[in-house]
């Protein structure tokens, strides 16, 4: 199942200069980056601005719809949903901001070794990647969830990274394989550069923009995975608060007290959409054909 993914198809022109400039020439990049910056600022700074007792139950407001006092309404025990969402967003972002770079690094490492070194090692690595791809990574996450220890977000982040690098590793492998034949790589080899030197100085820098796209989109994907895992009742669990635990608590109430579900859900969709719009803009800037190839 060695599919040419849309990413690989557009990754032919990685070495053109001025990626940043070309990316931010499109208004979509500004929209995506702005939306992402806003949601990250909300999650990481907003939680610092909250008063210490922000999530203390308000006995005068059980399960109230949004109001001037409680912007997102309150939960069944009178907790302010805006404060909870801010804290949940912080946890979800922490998971994603650890998981996504780790997954991208793993993909870069395994993929470039498999592609550049090739031979028996390469074949073994590809076989292992394909083996891991046989099972949907979400199933594997569910399977290892008893080891994650619930309240700690770091466990969830590591697990999401551990099962989230395989597809990108295949893409990186394909690119690294074609780089092996390029003159500048050959020149480095003939000048006596070691394999790790070639990988670090010549192969990986060449794939940097591809990896930037993967990292951007990976943040959104990790937020999605964490939320889905949390909704099933795994990964980060109570008493810790994440978008996943909020959505798990809110979804039985979605038809009767819709604010409990829809506010965290909209924040989640906003965060994911911001990463995919930004990732898309970077991908378009990489695309030699120029504009808007989805």
């Amino acid at each position, binding site marked *: 199942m060695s599919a040419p993914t*849309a990413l690989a198809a557009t990754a032919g022109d990685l070495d053109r200069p001025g990626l940043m400039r070309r990316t931010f020439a499109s208004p979509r990049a500004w929209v995506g980056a702005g939306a992402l910056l806003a949601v990250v600022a909300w999650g990481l700074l907003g939680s610092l601005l909250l008063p210490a007792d922000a999530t203390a139950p308000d006995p005068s407001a059980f399960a109230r719809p949004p109001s001037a006092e409680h912007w997102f309404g309150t939960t069944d025990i009178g907790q302010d949903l805006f404060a909870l969402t801010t804290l949940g967003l912080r946890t979800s972002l922490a998971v994603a901001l650890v998981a996504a770079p780790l997954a991208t690094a793993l993909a870069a490492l395994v993929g470039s070794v498999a592609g550049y070194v090739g031979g028996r090692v390469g074949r073994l690595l590809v076989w292992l990647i394909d*083996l891991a791809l*046989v*099972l949907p990574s979400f*199933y594997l996450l569910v399977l290892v969830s008893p080891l994650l220890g619930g309240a700690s977000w770091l466990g969830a982040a590591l697990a999401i990274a551990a099962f989230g690098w395989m597809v990108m590793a295949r893409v990186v492998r394909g690119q690294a394989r074609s780089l092996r034949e390029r003159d500048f790589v050959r020149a480095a080899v003939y000048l006596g550069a070691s394999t790790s030197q070639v990988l670090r100085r010549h192969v990986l820098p060449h794939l940097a923009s591809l990896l930037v796209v993967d990292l951007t989109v990976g943040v959104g994907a990790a937020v999605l995975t964490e939320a*889905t895992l949390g909704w099933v009742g795994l990964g980060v669990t109570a008493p810790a608060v994440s978008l996943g635990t909020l959505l798990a608590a809110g*979804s039985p109430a979605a038809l009767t007290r819709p604010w409990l579900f829809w506010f965290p859900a909209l924040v989640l*969709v906003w965060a*994911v959409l911001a990463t995919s719009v930004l990732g898309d803009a970077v991908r378009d800037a990489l695309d030699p054909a120029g504009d808007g190839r*989805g």
Partner: protein
Amino acid sequence: MAGRVASAPMVRFLARRLVGYGLVGVVATLAGYVLASLTLDPAARYAGRTPPVPPDVITARLAAMGVDPQVPLVVRTWRWFVGLLAHGSFGLSTRGDPVTGEIAARAGTSLRLLLLGTVLGVLLGMAIGVWGATHRHRWPDRVSTATSLVLLAVPAFVLAVAAMAGATALNNAVGRTVLPFTGEYTPGLEGGAWVQLADRAAHLVLPTLCVALAGAAVLSLYQRAAMLDVLSADYLRTARATGLPWRAAVLRHGVRVTLAPMSTFVAYSFGLVLTGASITELAFSWHGMGEYLVLGVADRDVNAAAGTVAFTAVLVLGAGLLADVLHAALDPRART
């Protein structure tokens, strides 16, 4: 055509693929069992009960399931695998029922949703992708691309809840339950086979729609990109130059060319669709394989979890093989 498709090199190619997939499937199944054994502690189920369960009873129960931790993992895995090969048995669940029977009962539920949702999603995704590519930069393209991006950012359970909210509004507006959305059928419904069938079909509508929409979102973006490549190709201009109308040229020389890479991509994203379908099942309270995995892990049930993993591996590899057959049938270069 049929004779050409089933040529000797293709049979050999597919046979080789089949052997390769079989091998990967066996290793994945064994890895699933080992992983489940390492992460799930079956004895934890009996801890902390009042009155406490005697240690002998625990050991006997665990031995009956083949998950006694005193037996080395290699031996347990081997016994489980032999049982699977010899009797097609995944062993006993923690509730004492054979896992194979439970999977057989649940598989139909999951497959019904998965097959309908996937087929509908593929058709919808391809149609939208082609439509968008041929109307590039006009409103159909902008609307469909934006919708796909938004759908991709929406988790399956949020889509399911949105569908349920929509159905509730519809049902309230009409004044009776037009679109039921809890479970696979209405319990205790009176009526003949047709009434039962119609009831099941009505329950299928929303979950199928959710799976299909999520699948179509991924596939339409890919189909659009593939179509845009093809639309600027020389052979399409040649086809037009021979006097072929635009629509016929796009369908016969454009869409057909994208089918081969598309079939591979569908197989590739099948794991994603599978995950989405499992989540959708859970959201609509269906008793399918997704629920079985989650319950199995919650119950610390090694055999149930490993059985689900094996079932999933067969599905994913089956999709891969199907894609290979389609790819080989559509693209002669792939038959080597």
